[in-house]
């Protein structure tokens, strides 16, 4: 029996499918409970309790939400383009999930070990904007189209800053392969790219927040001005899909920050002499490290939302074009200088 299962597993397509499921199911569960934690954490920050009715301490709340959304009626606004109206959320979730194909969870744990993985992720996030455009356009609603304009301009602008930040990483690692980038940071906690690339790291993460249209850059939703943005006309499962994609993208940005700047699955205790930590089990690379680092960034997303008021639109554009892009360009030069000076431990020529 076991042999049979193993031999089935050997078939390439089955093998890949199993791996896809192994990534997607935990991801979707994380998304579900991410929403729960969002409400809880922001609740506590605002001295409230948050959801506490469904299940013990409200643990079943996300399940209940999902059920509710699934069984609600899908309403097509009059004059909407039905085909595009349904394609839009599909496109959004497809690109959000497809990006996960190249994310490694350990030195060997990766579905598609692409040479240009970093570019692939950029491509997927940039294609994701089409979901928003389609949704806004096909809804035949003025609020939706307004939000579409805002989102698309914002995403395209911040993509440039994000792209430049990633150029810094690529320069440091001399590879576009994420596994190689993580390997390049090994040695000790000082080997992580967040130190030499600190400005890029900060810009990357802030741009990531802007890319996912999260607070304080959520003018795309701007409840007080344009109701709920591009998905104002969506209901039921179609709305749920947008929701899912947004959270999947947030997690993607977090795990990317962890992988590219904070050493991914490498342990922070690597190479530490103090108390012999460097040789203990704590120093070993493990997916646990990667996930905890990701969790830190995920928490930051929520913290931002609870803390900052929404940016005004022109301020967002100014920040992106006039602050971030110049800083990243200057820092690319700085990296060039560091590279030339062979600054240890990051830029030693191999």
């Amino acid at each position, binding site marked *: 029996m076991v042999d049979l299962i193993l031999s089935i597993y050997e078939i390439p397509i089955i093998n890949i499918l199993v791996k896809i499921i192994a990534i997607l199911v935990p991801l979707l569960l994380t998304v579900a409970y991410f929403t729960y934690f969002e409400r809880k954490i922001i609740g506590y920050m605002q001295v409230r309790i948050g959801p506490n009715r469904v299940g013990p301490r409200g643990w079943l709340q996300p399940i209940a939400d999902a059920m509710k959304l699934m069984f609600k009626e899908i309403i097509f606004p009059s004059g909407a383009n039905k085909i595009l109206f349904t394609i839009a959320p599909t496109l959004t979730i497809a690109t959000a999930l497809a990006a996960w194909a190249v994310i490694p969870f350990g030195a060997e744990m990766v579905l598609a070990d692409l040479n240009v993985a970093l*570019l692939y992720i*950029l491509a997927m996030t940039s294609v994701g904007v089409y979901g928003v455009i389609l949704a806004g356009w096909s809804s035949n609603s003025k609020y939706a189209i307004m939000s579409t304009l805002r989102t698309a301009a914002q995403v*395209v602008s911040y993509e440039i800053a994000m792209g430049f930040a990633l150029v810094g990483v690529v320069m440091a690692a001399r590879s576009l392969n994420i596994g190689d980038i993580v390997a390049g940071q090994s040695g000790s906690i000082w080997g992580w790219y967040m130190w030499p690339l600190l400005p890029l790291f900060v810009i990357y993460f802030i741009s990531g927040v802007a890319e996912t249209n999260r607070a304080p850059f959520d003018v795309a939703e701007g409840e007080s001005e344009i109701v709920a943005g591009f998905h104002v006309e969506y209901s039921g499962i179609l709305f749920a899909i947008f929701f899912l994609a947004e959270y999947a993208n947030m997690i993607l940005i977090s795990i990317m920050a962890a992988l590219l700047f904070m050493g991914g699955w490498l342990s922070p205790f690597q190479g530490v002499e103090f108390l012999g930590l460097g040789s203990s089990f704590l120093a070993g690379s493990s997916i646990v490290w990667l996930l905890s680092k990701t969790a830190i960034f995920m928490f930051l997303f929520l913290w931002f939302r609870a803390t900052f008021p929404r940016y005004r639109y022109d301020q967002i554009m100014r920040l992106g074009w006039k602050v971030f892009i110049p800083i990243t360009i200057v820092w690319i030069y700085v990296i060039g200088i560091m590279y030339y000076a062979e600054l240890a431990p990051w830029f030693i020529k191999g």
Partner: protein
Amino acid sequence: METIVFYVFSAFMILSALMVITVHNPVRAAFFLVLTFFSSAAVWLLLEAEFLAIILIIVYVGAVMVLFLFVVMMLDVNLAELKKGFVKNLPLAVIVALAMFAMIFMVVGGEQFGVQNFAVPERHAADYSNVSALGQLLYTEYVYSFEIAAVILLVGIVAAISLTLRRRPNTRHQKVEDQVAVKGADRLRVVKVESQPRKHTIDNAEVKK
């Protein structure tokens, strides 16, 4: 397997390219153009040019077409106006197009550029990196052309800004640096007010008035 993938994506590419020019709604045409780009990116992937494929998606699909879509969405394109004279000019257009097609077919068709004229390209080893191969060529052999291309982009930026930026004398701008540099003391004045007993009599008198 690869052949099948190639034919599927090529068919997609040709069909969607056809749709771009036949479809009525300009927004849909733009979306079909996106599909065309996607399919050609896939064909490029088959050629082991993964860098070009992904750059095509990032640049054309992710940025250029988004802006293009905006323009199309914002403009109220009057199709009737565009179609005026279409029928009148059709015969001439068809003749010219057919003549062009025949000529191009004669030249590009199988005889000169057919598959039989070219050797099957070598497969690259697994560690072959399209990115570094391209980079090496761009920054050595083609560095002059590369730099000129960069200058062209710079001119594009200068031109775009000089065409769109105009300062009107009476517009009000925010000075962001002033906004950032502002301190609490600039906006809020804390006044020390001596406490004193209430004067009931005066208050009552005013109310009565």
